[in-house]
């Protein structure tokens, strides 16, 4: 069964902006799905329609088979949503916020308190449960929104940039947490600007741009389509000019940094052998950009050119 199924979804705002131009998308139950796109591409509008915060102009959408036009209450009871913007009452405590949220989904208060303890502890917020939420750090506020979205144990969790502005340590622990939830059966749809995050977590991906899906594939298939990668090499000795390496595009960034584009047909052993032959010693190496970022930029640029 599909967790989310969308056909011909369109949205035109009152100011005439056409945010969605006929979206078709299916997300299978149990998937960890990335929905990527540049700012203003239509991601948040799509999520808004699915969660009923935005009214669609046309098309159909269903959650686990529940049509959002005819069975909205059932559809909404399956979804947990972590929005992009902080949207809880800053004057309430984390405990109150999550217990009340459970209540809005029909969870009796006694069960809600047990779940609140479980999720606030798992998201390292239990110590802050009785503090005013306004005083929480940015990362804690993000985690509180995740805890809140999980209180009714939804079958589909939608995360709209859940780690925006969160430091790398907390972000990685949130990745582990989300992986755990997904492994236990919750379907997750993730939008993020951290493409490393999508590449690390998600099995399937859709890229949306200009209100249209421009790519929909398995993450592994998409990454395989990358024909070349650019590596940044840190050199032990300074150079005055970029070495001539036939078959490679080489740029000298500064006297000890080389940028080399390596195509799929070539390999790094050959590159290092040729650099050694020229007496150039490589101290360290890294990807210039994340692989998914490379593909993403190419697809979006191609879309813009078209």
């Amino acid at each position, binding site marked *: 069964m599909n967790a989310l199924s969308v056909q011909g979804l369109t949205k035109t705002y009152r100011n005439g902006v056409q945010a969605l131009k006929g979206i078709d998308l299916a997300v299978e139950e149990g998937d960890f799905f990335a929905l990527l796109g540049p700012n203003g591409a239509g991601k948040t509008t799509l999520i808004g329609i699915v969660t009923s915060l935005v009214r669609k102009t046309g098309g159909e959408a269903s959650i686990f088979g529940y049509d959002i036009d005819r069975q909205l209450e059932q559809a909404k*009871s399956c979804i947990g949503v972590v*929005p992009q*913007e902080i949207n809880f009452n800053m004057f309430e405590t984390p405990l109150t916020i999550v217990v009340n949220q459970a209540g809005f*989904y029909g969870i009796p*208060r006694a069960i809600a308190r047990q779940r609140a303890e479980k999720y606030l*502890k798992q998201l390292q917020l239990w110590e802050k449960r009785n503090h005013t939420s306004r005083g929480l750090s940015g990362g804690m506020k993000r985690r509180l929104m995740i805890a809140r979205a*999980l209180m009714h144990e939804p079958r589909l969790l939608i995360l709209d940039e859940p780690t925006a502005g969160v430091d790398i340590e907390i972000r990685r622990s949130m990745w582990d947490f989300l*992986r755990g*939830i997904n492994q236990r059966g919750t379907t997750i749809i993730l939008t993020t600007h951290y493409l490393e995050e999508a590449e690390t977590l998600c099995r399937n991906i859709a890229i949306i741009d200009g209100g249209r899906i421009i790519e929909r594939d398995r993450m592994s298939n998409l990454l395989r389509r990358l024909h070349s990668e650019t590596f940044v090499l840190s050199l032990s000795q300074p150079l005055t000019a970029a070495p001539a390496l036939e078959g490679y595009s080489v740029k000298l960034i500064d006297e000890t940094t080389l940028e080399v584009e390596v195509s799929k047909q070539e390999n790094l052993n050959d590159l290092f052998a040729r650099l050694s032959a020229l007496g150039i010693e490589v101290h360290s190496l890294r990807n210039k950009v994340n692989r998914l970022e490379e593909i993403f930029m190419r697809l979006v640029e191609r879309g813009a050119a078209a």
Partner: protein
Amino acid sequence: MSTMVEHSAAPPQSMAQIRRVGFQTIVIREFHRIVRIWSQTILPSGVTATLYFLIFGAVIGSRLGPMNGISYMTYIAPGLIMQAVILNSYNNVVSSFFGAKFGKHIEELLVSPLPSWIIVSGYVAGGLLRGAMVGLLVSIVTLFFTHLPVTHPVIVVAAAAMTSMTFALGGFLNAMFAKNFDQISVIPNFVLTPLIYLGGVFYSIAQLPAWAQHLSLVDPILYMVNAFRFGFLGVSDVPVVVAFTIMVIAILTLFSTAVLMLDRSSGIRE
């Protein structure tokens, strides 16, 4: 961060349970809000009522004769209680709902499976709760200044509850329309307060010239105050049946409009 997330084996909630627990949750949340900011929600009405009784009842009222055969202090008491009920029921809903809209936490309810009529009912119950709490406080203050008989207790409770619901619904609609904080203070200041003062809180309309009496009859608050006063003192300037009919019509009309507006999400959803 622990990854031990175990989904409970609890059965999914029925729609009836979601609605029942959801409604209770909104009411509990509103109650906590009223209590948390009691110095803004409860206390001012007690202070204002004390001042009214001191100035209009004791100082000025002592120079006035009885009204409809009842001492002036006792005559204005039901109106002052009703004034507090009206303003607090209205203000509770308008500030709570607009605050949720402004702070975006209204989205917590909008993404939930609760239907619009439950959301409206929950907020109205919150207004009713604050109206009852403040009405009780002002009634206690009243007893320090005058004896207040209760002639028809059922009418007292029904008139207070229905008036409170009417104005709680009015507050909800105001909050739906409002785009900024100025717009939630315009109606209480420039519509409700004049209507209350002209609605027979401080006098019987029988004392007005004929044209003013006719004009007063278009003020809906006149009917509510008089129905409430009838419950306490057994006197009214208008037929009580007409007063209750007006309240029923007002509640049904305002409730339908509020649910319809929330369904269409005017001013909330895009």
